[in-house]
């Protein structure tokens, strides 16, 4: 009896766990992308030593140009068409002990705003999680740059297209055991790559164990991203861009904005019609008056 009761209890417990998992998965935007088929990249800034081997490896794999002394100095480097990954020194102004090397690249949002605004569908979110620009299709309008909450897609003035990190989508499907170039190059294991749900668990474990790691960037920001970054403090303290928490590419919001405009247009047309009909009547009245006077 007891044994049977225990068995049922365990099943119930498992059911409850599965139910809770499903509940969390379906409800929180941050975890909605934690599907087992999707990859994620984890950057641990508390481990990064700022050697910039990730930048160098990225440039080598993607055949990007190297600018002068950007790989050997702490000079602030910005993302560009030739810099898909940058490592910059960041410090918390309030607490100087929070000095980190921040590995920064495309965050591969679960619902990418760039893909939503691209007029010709040149940007796609691949099933594995990579957000990729089709450079043969891009028209170079830079709307994706405006819409991206992190300002990642940058314009290449020579090729006249927008380029950005692809999470090495040309590496992963060929050799499934291979990691993105930046992750493979990291000498101190500050970067890891794997299934998204494993990465979330790993990040939470590190935040739990390591007292310097306090914040996981990418769980909620911009509706959740497939790249996670462990930070010693909140992103705004480090001077990082703070993305809106709610889903950036919300279609309902778009409808609201556009609908307001259409209502305005209808109101304008109505006003014009009223103006026209009112003044037209006046003229007719004038004509009538004149005719009466003449007669």
């Amino acid at each position, binding site marked *: 009896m007891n044994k049977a009761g225990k068995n049922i209890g365990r099943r119930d417990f498992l059911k409850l766990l599965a139910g809770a998992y499903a509940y969390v998965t379906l409800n929180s935007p941050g975890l909605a992308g934690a599907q087992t088929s999707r990859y994620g990249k984890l950057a641990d800034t508390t481990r990064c030593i700022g050697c910039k081997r990730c930048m160098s490896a990225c440039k080598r794999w993607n055949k990007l140009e190297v600018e002068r002394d950007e790989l050997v100095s702490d000079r602030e480097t910005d993302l560009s068409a030739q810099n898909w990954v940058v490592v910059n020194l960041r410090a918390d102004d309030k607490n100087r002990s929070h000095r980190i090397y921040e590995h920064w690249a495309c965050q591969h949002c679960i619902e990418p705003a760039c893909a939503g605004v*691209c007029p010709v569908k040149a940007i796609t979110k691949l099933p594995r999680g990579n957000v990729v620009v089709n450079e043969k299709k891009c028209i170079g309008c830079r709307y994706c740059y405006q819409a991206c909450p992190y300002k990642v897609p940058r314009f290449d003035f020579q090729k006249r297209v927008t380029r950005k990190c692809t999470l090495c989508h040309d590496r992963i499907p060929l050799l499934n055991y291979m990691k993105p170039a930046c992750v493979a190059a990291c000498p101190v294991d500050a970067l890891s790559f794997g299934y998204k749900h494993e990465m979330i668990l790993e990040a939470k474990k590190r935040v739990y164990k390591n007292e310097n790691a306090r914040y996981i960037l990418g769980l909620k920001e911009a509706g959740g991203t497939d790249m996670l970054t462990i930070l010693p403090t909140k992103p705004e303290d480090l001077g990082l861009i*703070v993305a809106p928490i709610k889903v950036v590419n919300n279609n309902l919001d778009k409808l609201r904005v556009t*609908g307001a405009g259409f209502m*305005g247009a209808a109101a304008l047309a109505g006003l014009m019609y009223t103006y026209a009909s009112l003044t037209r009547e006046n003229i007719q009245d004038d004509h009538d008056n004149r005719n009466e006077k003449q007669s």
Partner: protein
Amino acid sequence: MTTGTKNNLDIIFNHLENSRAFYIWVSILVSAAGLALYAILMSWIYSLEIFEFSAQVSWVTMVSNYVFLVVSSTGLCIVTSLGHVFGMQRYELISRRGVFLSLITIIFGMISIGAHLGHPERAMIFNLLTPNFRSAMWWMGTLYTFYIVFIAIEYWLLARPELIERSDQAQGAGEIIYSHMALKKLNNSRLGAVLKNHKLLQFVGAAALISGLSAHNTLGALFGHVEARPLWHGSYYPLYFLLSASFCGYAWLLAVSIATYKIKKEEIPENYKSLIFEMAQVLALLLSVGLVFTTYKMGFGLFAPEKVKPILLFLKGPFSRAFWLFEIGIGTVLPIAILLWAAPKKNIIGVLIASVMVLVGVYVMRYDFVVAAQVYPVIKNGLPSYLPAFMEVLFIGGLLGALFLTYILGEKFLPLKEEHRH
């Protein structure tokens, strides 16, 4: 009017018998257009970077210029449609000029954005092949394509009677050109009868107005959808764009038609004059509504946490001079005062000055609107300066030069004057 001319050579010679100032103007405009072509050529030979003010502010003068021109085009379409769509006969005086201006402003606006795009040729192909219905930019591009077609047909229908008249009076090449432009051979067919029907013009005008308003709304929505740019985000801009289009259209029509008459030293007909003063009063009214809108935006922006910083860029930041002096002073308050003074006194120069001021103010406003939103939140301490690059200035100057040149040529060779049907 060129009705007295005997043949096409006479037409050309009569046009060329203008004053020296005309030649100087045309050569200035032609050379400006040449410089713009040079700038485009250089951008193709070297890189698009010569147009770029900063990699972080990726939409600058060409985008704001585009916005200005298409706002003008929609506004002109709105104002002219009062005449032949809504049936206000006195507005039919400005139909041809307004619709022609509307056509050339939208075309030059498209040239402006085409030079800004990395691959304009792909934009045409992939807009058709792989449309993204969730993107406001796709809707804008598609609707404006329809708009251009409708507005071109609208102008052709408006101009056709006089084109036929001109082909009857001209001889030789002039006759052939004008009769081909008017498709004179259709005259005795059934289609010709349809083309003469006023209902068709009304229908095409309504189609142009609807596509124009929708396209313009999606242009505002293009900015309104961008949640990552707090200044643009929201439903304010689609509405404000429609309003600013209206006053921009009035200002263009007033400025261009008065300036044309003054430069040609012709007397403005009495009914046209009374329409001008009516339009001046409407312009003053619309500008006051615009001022209310601006106050609303700034006032509410100060209380919205995400909008405070970009709003403060206008109120006391690097954009304050442009905002207070150009947008508020030259663009809104002074013109209202001048118009309210000039309209009752029947002072035509006052109306001209006020409407030119409105256009200058709106131009600066567009530039600020596009640039300031990109400064925050990316560039932390704002921009040190925000002057456009040299090549950009060449391009924009040349583009506007080519716009005015096209207008002058249109004024010479196409029927733009008021209709005498009524």
